[in-house]
């Protein structure tokens, strides 16, 4: 039996899961403040634009968006199977395409800032 190529995806799942465990809750808290009408200073256009214009800002935003997407996509694939949706190849294709598309989109948008 051949060895699996799953590590390529699982690597991004492990990295994305760890990263989003650390940062997703606080990011949600920030935009929750926006939703409640108390926009934090950092999220004002000029401040956030300056952050995203810096290479470190670009890199962090890309890492968070891309890895969280891959992590969520992989887990969603397993979850679909666990819920009884057995069209695994179709599910995998869709979720990984969304993650790949999202990662490329993040690069494109960040490069324009």
């Amino acid at each position: 039996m051949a060895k699996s190529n799953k590590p390529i995806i699982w690597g991004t799942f492990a990295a994305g899961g760890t990263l989003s465990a650390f940062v997703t809750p606080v990011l949600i808290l920030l935009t929750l403040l926006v939703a409640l009408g108390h926009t934090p200073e950092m999220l004002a256009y000029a401040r956030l634009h300056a952050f995203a214009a810096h290479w470190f800002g670009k890199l962090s935003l890309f890492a968070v968006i891309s890895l969280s997407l891959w992590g969520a996509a992989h887990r969603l694939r397993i979850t679909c199977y666990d819920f009884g949706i057995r069209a695994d190849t179709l599910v995998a294709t869709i979720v990984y395409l969304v993650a790949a598309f999202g990662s490329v989109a993040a690069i494109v948008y960040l490069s324009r800032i």
Partner: protein
Amino acid sequence: MGEKMSRKPYVREVPKYSWFFRRPRYMRYMAREVTCIFIGAYTLLLLVGVMRLSQGQAEYEAFLAALRSPVSVVFHLLALGFSVYNTATWFNVTPKALPVQIGEEFLPGGVITGAHYLGWAVLSLAVLLMAGVF
């Protein structure tokens, strides 16, 4: 012996759509797994935010304004709950995946998990400070 021995193994099928109702631990597992729906959706929201940011001030501010709705608040609260649950479940099992052996003994799992919680708290506070929330 009058009775003949015969083999006819009986297979009990696992119910495909409802197996996770069988035990509370399966429900906890599924709750952990569905956190990905909220984390994924929220990340897509972030991506939209970055897109709006790249389009200019007016577009970005329209995006912020669009976040101010009851639906958005409900989504954020749900996403916050699920993402905190994801964080807790992730850190709680980290010692299993990454045990640390110092000399002969293994570091107690609680120490590894505790260090992760501490790092999480420090990082979250740093982000909030940097964002000017306090």
